[in-house]
């Protein structure tokens, strides 16, 4: 079989505002992860431009992208991506050590309700706990942007709700622009704005008149 180019994104035009909570909703393969990666400086678009404040990310080289991620972006991944050889505290410290004005790892872990489990290794924790460590790691540097890629994808409902609650609290208390990717439509209810995604395109954008707290969500 020959090689066929499949563009992940085709003409996305989207603005994100400081401090808002956005949910990107779409089925698997709709291109939402690619968009998130581009927003976070993990990937560059083949064409078009991405701007952060007055900075054009699509023109950046590897070093400036690294600087952008280091200073402004926090990531939460579906599979946590914790360093297995480091404890919860150390995984957070990994980021605080290179950030400009971070909170302490202890503060960050307390924020996600893990003050008691700081010296556990990833393998000694449940999936929900690992994801909360990942969130603590993402927010410890006080990022302007928090990007979460299916943060509840590998979790059960109860744990998922707890994780979403933490994300919402970070958004509320730290005023971090937060983008959560999910294919789970229920989560859309807790966002300021919901971006519906399909086939590499923004299908439509809805603004929620009223945000639901994470605790009230069930799926």
């Amino acid at each position, binding site marked *: 079989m020959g090689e066929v180019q499949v563009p992940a994104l085709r003409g996305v035009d989207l603005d994100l505002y400081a401090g808002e909570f956005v949910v990107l909703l779409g089925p698997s393969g709709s291109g939402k992860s690619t968009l998130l990666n581009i927003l*976070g400086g*993990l990937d*560059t678009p083949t064409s078009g431009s991405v701007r952060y404040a007055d900075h054009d990310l699509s023109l950046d080289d590897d*070093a400036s992208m690294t*600087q952008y991620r*280091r200073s402004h972006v926090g990531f939460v*991944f579906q599979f946590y*991506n914790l*360093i297995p050889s480091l404890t919860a505290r150390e995984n957070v410290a990994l980021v605080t050590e*290179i950030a400009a004005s971070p909170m302490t790892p202890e503060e960050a872990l307390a924020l996600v309700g893990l003050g008691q489990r700081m010296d556990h290794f990833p393998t000694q924790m449940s999936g929900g706990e690992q994801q909360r460590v990942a969130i603590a790691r993402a927010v410890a540097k006080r990022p302007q942007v928090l990007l979460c890629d299916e943060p509840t994808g590998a979790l059960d409902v109860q744990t998922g709700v707890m994780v979403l609650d933490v994300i919402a609290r970070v958004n509320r208390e730290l005023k971090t622009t937060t983008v959560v990717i999910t294919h789970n439509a229920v989560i859309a209810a807790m966002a300021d704005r919901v971006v519906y995604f399909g086939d590499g395109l923004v299908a439509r954008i809805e603004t929620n008149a009223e945000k639901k707290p994470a605790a009230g969500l069930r799926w």
Partner: protein
Amino acid sequence: MSALDRKLWRDLWQMKSQALAIALVVMCGVGTYIMFLTTLGALRVTQDSYYRDYRFAEVFVSLKRAPQPLRQRLQDIAGVDQVETRVLAQVRVDMPAFAEPVTALMVSVSDSGRHGLNALHLSAGRLPAPERPGEVAVGKAFAQAHALQLGDRFYAILNGRRQALTLVGTALSPEFIQQMRPGSVFPDYKRYSVMWMGRRALGQAYDMHGAFNDVALSLRPGADSQYVIDSVDELLRPYGGLGAYARKDQLSHRFLSQELEQLGTLASLFPAMFMGIAAFLLNVVIGRLVAMQREQIATLKAFGYGNLAVLWHYLKMVSLIAGLGIVSGTALGVWLGQALSGIYMEFYHFPYLKFSLQPVTVMEAALASLLAAGAGTVFAVWRAASLRPAQGMRPEPPTRYRETWVEKLGLKRWLSQPTRMIIRHIQRRALKSMLTLLGIAMACGIILTGLFQRDTVSYMVNIQFGMAQREDLSLTFTEPTSYRVRFDLLGLPGVQHVEVFRAVPVRLRHGHRSYRTGIRGVEPGGDIQRLLDADLRPVALPADGLLLTDFLAKMLDLRVGDRVVVEVLEGNRPVREATVAGLVREYLGVSGYMDLAALNRFMQEGPTLSGAYLSVDSAQLQSLYARLKGMPRVAGVAERVQEIRNFNRVMQETMLFFTYVATVFAVIIAFGVIYNSARIALTERGRELASLRVLGFTRAEIAYILLGELGILTLIAIPLGLWLGEWMCYYIAHTMQNDLFRVPVVLVPQTYAFAAAVVLVSAILSGLAVRRRLDQLDLIAVLKTAE
């Protein structure tokens, strides 16, 4: 400690067995390097300082007899510093407790004592007094071989008179570091020694009162040694001078320098090979190890760690592993170097040994290891870090497999699914598979290089003493003798067969090349002493013309049919030309051969001989010795069995020590490589294999998939490695050849089998170790994590 450094230590601990295996490989490379270079350095420094401290002379010459006043004329030659005239005599010694005849070179002790040239280092007792005829000092090795105590008495035949001697001292001399009977290739401490006697006492015995028959000279800095040699020859011609020669042609010095040169060759070759192979393996293994951290590298990058920070992190990790190898390798190398130097010091009877570890040696070894490890790391990190983090954090995309040529050949239906997986995996990752294959092959090959010298030595003994020199005893006479002596010899007890020879010391000259050696006239059709061609078939002796050792012909740039100038170095020293009639193959020494009668004609002498080879009924050997002891004309007796023993002893004591070490190191390297390959394969494919287990595959079945690949690679690597090893052996042999001996490449089947077995056993042990881990695969974890 930063979180990243903590990760470093924990990761290291996590992969400790792999790290250890890699450190072992580095250790072996560094250890070999340091062992060889420190030993070589110690011997060179010791040789230099020994020569300097004991004023080893620079020009030597023997003559018939010259009056003492001639000394001043030698002193007056431009460039000559110190002149030492002396009396030397080849004597027969009778040790009361030893049946066989013993030969000694009796040397007069310098009147200037410890300020003279070739000063003696006394290991026990004192120097013999100048005027006391009965006092001697002997070589330390001889005293040890005969368990002689100071005050012991034995007998010598001095100028035909039997005289009792008392041992007053044992000594070492820079002139006779190796005490070898002329014509012998190896020292025999029981049957030959240098002995020292007072100048007047020895002079009187040999009618050399107020005269001398040997001179040693030292030169002023910047002196032209060839001019001195020519002037000395000119001056001594009327006095039966036998041709002056420089230090480089002095027997003991030559033996020592050749030995050091050979060690030097090995010292550059072996460590370079070991370091090179260790570096290559290090590079491959480290590269794969780092490549496995791809997802972690991507995560670090996602959180804002720059490429350099990530690279530095892994460089630190790798340096720690390499550093462990470097430190332990240095310690091991120094320890082995001391052991090896000690062996050489004992062997050469140096009065002392200057052992020191040069920092630059350690630096070189460390640098080579770190560079190799660093290069592997940089490449792997660069590859992992150049991926967009988004891409790197995902597991590697599934590899595109396709049917392999093995399957396309129509063998497909014979192959089970797991076997197809193995073959496709090897083919798909051809480069990785090739590198692993090459690594195992090199480890296999290097084992051969350690072992081949042992095979070669026994082969050389077989050829030299089994096919060429087949006599039981060889005799040399004090002076050229008439053919009639053959009948006297045949009448001795136990003598079954006699072949005679004439030996003439010569310098062969062709163009600007020349070489000091001997021409041996042998009986045509001789059965005891045979000359062999390159295919080891006996060579028919031409009625006229000269046969040369092939290596000598090469040294002198001579071909069959060429004319060569022969300067005879005895008698009235005629200079004539001879034709090279053919070449012979010899592994020890180089010389020329002629038909006995032709040599006599060439020398314009009657039927004259210098010695004889005997076949002897071993039952009557003792009574034969008793008779030979009574024959004053017999200067020396060599027994073939003893020569073989001497040969083996020299080899055992020097060459074989490090070949054993090299072999052990090679085995460790082989194991290190194979174990790491297996471990890395496990990590790379653990997830895939666990999924198979979930699907219902048994442990044995997944072990087959993982280890089958290693097995196939190992099986291909073994023949390749044996071929590589053979090639390396040829290279070593080629660089080691010199005029004292040429090492043929001989590898017996057992050696191949051993190398193959080491690799197989390493593979099996590594397989078992990995199998144990495979049995503990966490199936649930696999299902939970991303794919």
